């Protein structure tokens, strides 16, 4: 509740600063460089069907990418992080691949996955995959030995050790990494959506929406606001998921 209030205050602050910037630029330059927030809102509402379809397409791609990244990065990270031998063999490989932006390989990804939905989801999930993977490996290697000893003396097998100790110990850090990477993921999504021009029309994703209407600044900016909402949506989604799955982290802290 209190957090919702903070967001409301922040929204008002952005609204005010934006309007101020529009006004100042208009006075200095003599023409409206940045459209006022209310005209952006009006333009967005006017084109609501296209805007909504663009937002839904981008959100769906991001959601699929997030699930794919967790489904692959988390188990692999647990395995590599928990085993000294696997870590020795795989970590050089991972740390060599980790800094490569998937966008640099976009041409090859298009060749491999075509120009449809697949390549966009693959690009974003590759980005998020490495964030989740590296966070999971780091956290799995830092687990207190006393937790591991406690379940081993109680007779736990390897699977039980992963389920009762390693996975729950690693989750909070993985969620933090994923939350921090939402912005990076959206950047990658934008590039993947627009790299090949305006295929699919303005309703096929926020990136294409923004570029299609580049000449109608108020409409184009409504697409940018859509990106901000997209980021907020997934940031909040991950936070709620973490608060639910990692309740123990928040006991006694309200």
């Amino acid at each position, binding site marked *: 509740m209190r957090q919702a209030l903070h967001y409301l205050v922040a929204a008002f602050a952005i609204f005010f600063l934006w309007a101020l910037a529009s006004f100042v630029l208009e006075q200095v330059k003599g023409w409206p460089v940045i459209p006022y927030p209310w005209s952006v809102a009006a333009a967005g509402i006017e084109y609501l069907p296209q805007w909504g379809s663009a937002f839904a397409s981008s959100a769906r791609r991001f959601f699929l990418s997030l699930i794919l990244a967790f489904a692959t990065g988390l188990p692999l990270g647990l395995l590599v992080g928990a085993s000294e031998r696997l870590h020795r063999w795989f970590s050089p490989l991972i740390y060599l691949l980790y800094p490569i932006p998937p966008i640099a390989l976009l041409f090859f990804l298009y060749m491999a996955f075509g120009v449809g939905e697949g390549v966009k989801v693959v690009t974003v999930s590759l980005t998020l995959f490495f964030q989740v993977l590296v966070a999971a490996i780091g956290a799995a290697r830092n687990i207190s030995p*006393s*937790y591991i*000893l*406690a*379940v*081993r*003396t*109680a*007779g*736990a097998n390897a699977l*039980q050790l992963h389920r*009762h*100790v390693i996975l*729950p*110990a690693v989750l909070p850090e993985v969620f933090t990494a994923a939350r921090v990477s939402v912005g990076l993921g959206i950047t990658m999504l934008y590039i993947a959506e627009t790299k090949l021009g305006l295929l699919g029309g303005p309703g096929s994703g926020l990136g294409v929406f923004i570029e299609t209407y580049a000449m109608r600044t108020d409409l184009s900016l409504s697409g940018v606001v859509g990106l901000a909402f997209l980021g907020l949506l997934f940031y909040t989604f991950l936070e709620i998921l973490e608060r639910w799955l*990692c*309740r*123990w982290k928040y*006991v*006694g802290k309200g």
Partner: protein
Amino acid sequence: MISVEALRIEYGRGRRHTLAVEEVSFRVEDGESVALIGPSGCGKTSILLAIDGIIRPASGRIIIRGEEVRGVRRDVAFITQDAGLLPWKTVRQNAELALRLQRRPREGIQEILRSLGLGGFENRYPAELSEGMRRRVGIARALALRPEVFLMDEPMANLDTLTRERIQEIILRLWHMYRFTGLLVTHDIEEAVFLGQRIIILSPRPARVVEVIENPGMGEAEYRRSEEFYRVVARAREILKSLEEK
């Protein structure tokens, strides 16, 4: 009965090779409570882990109730130094954990928690408890297994004096109630004398048995204030001191 025969424990290979335990032999009779005491890092915990089947001895044998130890057993419970509670599990889930891992019915947890003064805290997380309560949850987890043998690795380490004495008295009471075979590892002399019918003194690493002190007077909470208690404590202290000076 626990029988440890010519136990030898080594770690690492090549240049990092260390001999932790050298030829240690002793026995703990059924229903007996024995304390293992020695300087920090002497290999006490290694001996306990070998008895639990977590680490494999380089040579020698460990036999519990007629069977050689080859892995973690269902009739042996282990209490670790800091209770080893998992912060993501509630008090009840932590207390049930050993039963759950061994796929045994989770019965009697409620009574055990209540008898340890943890009633009403079943759904709390460890972060919400005092240190003394956390140790009691660790004891509950071990007790839930209804074990024949209790292995305790400094269960009272890093507690304030009153809390430590309280937990010692709880362990004493449980020993009278269940008559388990108890082996306690500690570096606290008074604790060893309070809880051990015999006190086995180990040398600095690599561990060897230096001396065994008989301590027939133990068994009551009041023993702590008796003259005999002080006499045994003084004797153990003297032996440990002479080891340090060597």
